[in-house]
């Protein structure tokens, strides 16, 4: 038994009273094996791991009971210096967002070497080891790149750098807190593979904290499921995934997208036509100033048609151009070349009056409801704002009632109208954003990663809502996402983008069952889109 957490409880005082973040939790992990701690946000999954690393500040937190036994010694009884010596040397941790977890002002080589330096390794020895480590985790040209700064790497590379730092002293245990959540799907797979390799080489134990069941399936030997601070289920990952005992586990598994049937909806006349659209950033102006940067082709010669009633899924990873495309469809950006036509009329070159009218028919839901809802406005004001901008749509006397109706439609209550966004959960805020999008009775809604920031179960609910609205109002959607499983559930046709270009398009059934392009295949494989479950 490498690490054993026994009956651990951790509490945080807050204005609303005592928050029991972790309640009587026990789990353990052996050398060479991977334990997954699975839970949604607020489940307490990270808290117990943080306690292992002495990252919980007590005060203000309280640990009323429990033991953390590492190789038999209770860490909670050890003094600060002992625990400091363990961190980075015997137990290491990597974090979710590698951009935030690396200090932006120091070169990556220095940061990796720091792990070794603080544990007594001589600087020149550490230096040499850094190059080894960078090579090991797959960073090319390590001698040159070790002098670079975190912002000069991609997301996936940064996580590899974190891993390099964490394994520098060959720790016995690695704790990985959501190590792949911030990464693109294909990159995720590779990082997880790397972790498995290292584990196999060094016999390292690993605790993997995640909300993503595909990750659990892929790499975990055993899993504990947490809900509201407690462990509700535990066992080998095969058992738990195939035969969940607890209600919550079952609900989680059900909520996994990509297991429903495909949507087939009769499509009508063309609504959106995109012809040879490109968006190039930089170019002449940049070249004058710097004389070195290449212009960036964010969207490169993209063409497709979308019919009324369709839900067009646009998938791709970061840098694929999908968001840029969404912005152009919304008219927030102009294409450098090419034409976008909505309902037969070109979007660029419209007069202000025409553009104004067109905006009513195309609405949006963005990814981060915290950012897209003005924190100073009440829900009433937020949802009614479109009517303030387009005063001839609805007379002011009817605003209140209509807001109440919309709130009910999206599954909220009319008296929520007088609250402020921060008083709602993430899922609820996204519903508010959807209600706002519906206010003008649009024909097309562009969703840019609208559910990506939500927990799995909440995602499912919101997708259901969107489906209902589609059925009730004949809405069309452009649904931009990086999660193929989600798109599979919801879209009627799919565009796959890579490097600004469309590499594959077609009805969703065709693309998923019979991908043609290599990239599409790699993407599908990496996302582990689970085939339809039998019963």
């Amino acid at each position, binding site marked *: 038994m490498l690490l054993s957490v026994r009956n651990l409880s951790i509490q945080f005082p807050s204005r609303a009273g005592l928050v029991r973040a972790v309640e009587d939790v026990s789990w353990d992990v052996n050398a060479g094996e991977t334990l997954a701690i699975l839970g949604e946000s607020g489940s307490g999954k990270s808290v117990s791991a943080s306690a292992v690393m002495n990252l919980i500040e007590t005060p203000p937190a309280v640990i009323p009971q429990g033991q953390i036994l590492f190789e038999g010694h209770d860490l909670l009884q050890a003094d600060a210096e002992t625990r400091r010596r363990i961190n980075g040397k015997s137990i290491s*941790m990597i974090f979710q967002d590698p951009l935030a977890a690396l*200090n932006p002002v120091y070169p990556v080589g220095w940061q990796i070497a720091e792990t070794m330096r603080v544990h007594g390794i001589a600087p020149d020895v550490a230096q040499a080891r850094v190059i080894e480590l960078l090579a090991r985790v797959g960073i090319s040209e390590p001698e040159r790149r070790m002098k670079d700064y975190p912002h000069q790497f991609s997301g996936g590379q940064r996580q590899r750098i974190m891993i390099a730092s964490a394994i520098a002293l060959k720790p016995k245990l690695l704790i990985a807190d959501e190590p792949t959540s911030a990464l693109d799907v294909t990159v995720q797979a590779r990082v997880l593979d790397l972790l498995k390799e290292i584990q196999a080489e060094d016999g390292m134990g690993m605790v993997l904290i995640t909300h993503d069941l595909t990750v659990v399936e892929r790499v975990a030997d055993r899993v504990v499921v947490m809900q509201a601070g407690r462990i509700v289920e535990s066992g080998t990952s095969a058992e738990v995934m195939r035969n969940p005992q607890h209600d919550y586990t079952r609900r989680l598994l059900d909520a996994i997208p990509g297991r429903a049937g495909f949507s087939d909806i009769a499509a009508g006349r063309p609504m959106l036509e995109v012809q040879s659209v490109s968006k190039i950033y930089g170019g002449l102006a940049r070249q004058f100033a710097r004389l070195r940067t290449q212009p960036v082709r964010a969207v490169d010669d993209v063409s497709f048609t979308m019919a009324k009633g369709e839900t067009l899924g646009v998938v791709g990873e970061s840098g694929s151009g999908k968001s840029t495309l969404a912005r152009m469809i919304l008219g927030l950006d102009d294409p450098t070349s090419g034409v976008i036509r909505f309902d037969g009329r070109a979007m660029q070159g419209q007069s202000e009056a025409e553009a104004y009218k067109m905006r009513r028919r195309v609405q949006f839901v963005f990814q981060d409801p915290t950012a897209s809802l003005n924190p100073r406005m009440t829900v009433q004001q937020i949802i009614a704002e479109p009517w303030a901008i387009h005063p001839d749509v609805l007379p002011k006397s009817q605003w209140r009632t209509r807001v109440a109706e919309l709130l009910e439609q999206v599954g909220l209550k009319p008296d929520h109208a007088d609250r402020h966004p921060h008083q709602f959960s993430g899922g609820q805020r996204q519903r508010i954003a959807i209600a706002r999008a519906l206010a003008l009775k649009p024909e097309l809604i562009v969703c840019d990663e609208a559910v990506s920031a939500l927990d799995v179960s909440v995602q499912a609910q919101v997708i259901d809502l969107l489906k209902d609205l589609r059925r009730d109002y004949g809405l069309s959607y452009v649904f931009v996402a990086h999660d193929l499983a989600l798109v599979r559930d919801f879209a009627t046709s799919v565009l796959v983008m890579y490097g600004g270009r469309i590499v594959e398009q077609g009805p969703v059934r065709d693309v998923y069952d019979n991908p043609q392009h290599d990239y599409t295949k790699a993407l599908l494989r990496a996302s582990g889109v689970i085939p339809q479950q039998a019963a």
Partner: protein
Amino acid sequence: MGSFIFKRSFQSILSLIFLVIVVFFLARMTGSPAMLYLPPEATQDQIDAYNALHGFDDPLIVQFGSFITGVFQGDFGNSLQYSRPALDMVLAAFPTTLALAAVTMPLVLLISIVTGALAAYHPGGVFDRLASLISLIGASMPNFWVAIVGVLVFAVTLNVLPTSGTGTWQHWVLPVAVLVLRPAGVLVQVMRTSMMTALSSVYVKAAKAKGVKARAIIFVHALRNSLLPVITVASDQAAGIVNGAVIVETVFGFPGIGKLMIDSVLMRDFAVIQAAILVTALAVFLINIIVDISYAFVDPRIRHS
């Protein structure tokens, strides 16, 4: 970096020119200063003669024209009060103020960075509260009062420091101490807040997870990330001192540019006003450029953008 400095310098010079023009016209719109320089019994003829002598009876544009011609020959005109070249007077006074600023600011930065960093490490703790109290007092006390009390206590009662004047390093103790108070008080607070933000960041957590010691967490990891707002506010304070630590100069008899500017304004000594504003504006622009460079130095993300 070179092109950056060039661009900023160019912008600064444009602003400088604009400033000089504005000051020229604004100052002269207050009318002729003749009555400040002639005895009260002066006759109208004497006043007219004075105005003619100094060109105050010419239209403003004409006066501006001769000023510009003079500038291109390096001549900013003569002080009405001292009959010496205005630029000479300003360049003689400026180094004193500059020296005051050059001694004060490093002290301020040292005190506030160390104190603010340590205070942020245990927010709400004893050191933090003490530091907050002292820094708030420092930031609120009027310079004038502190200076005089300082003289009365240290020079008169305890007799360990001179009252005023320049000369030995002891003459600088009280003036610098007075000048340090408010900027240090303000910056301790800025540093503290900034440091608290940095200490709650993920990379600090990650550093703790690596086993980095507490002191290194503060002074190696968090410090550099906290510096940007401190640099911004510090540059403000420095510009304030450079513009003339007037009170300190007046009380302690340091012949600096602050006092020179105030006296010139009161006596409508146009040439000196213009030259003084030009020189101090130049210094402020330089400070801004230095600040921009230090941003790039502290944060490599700015360097590479």
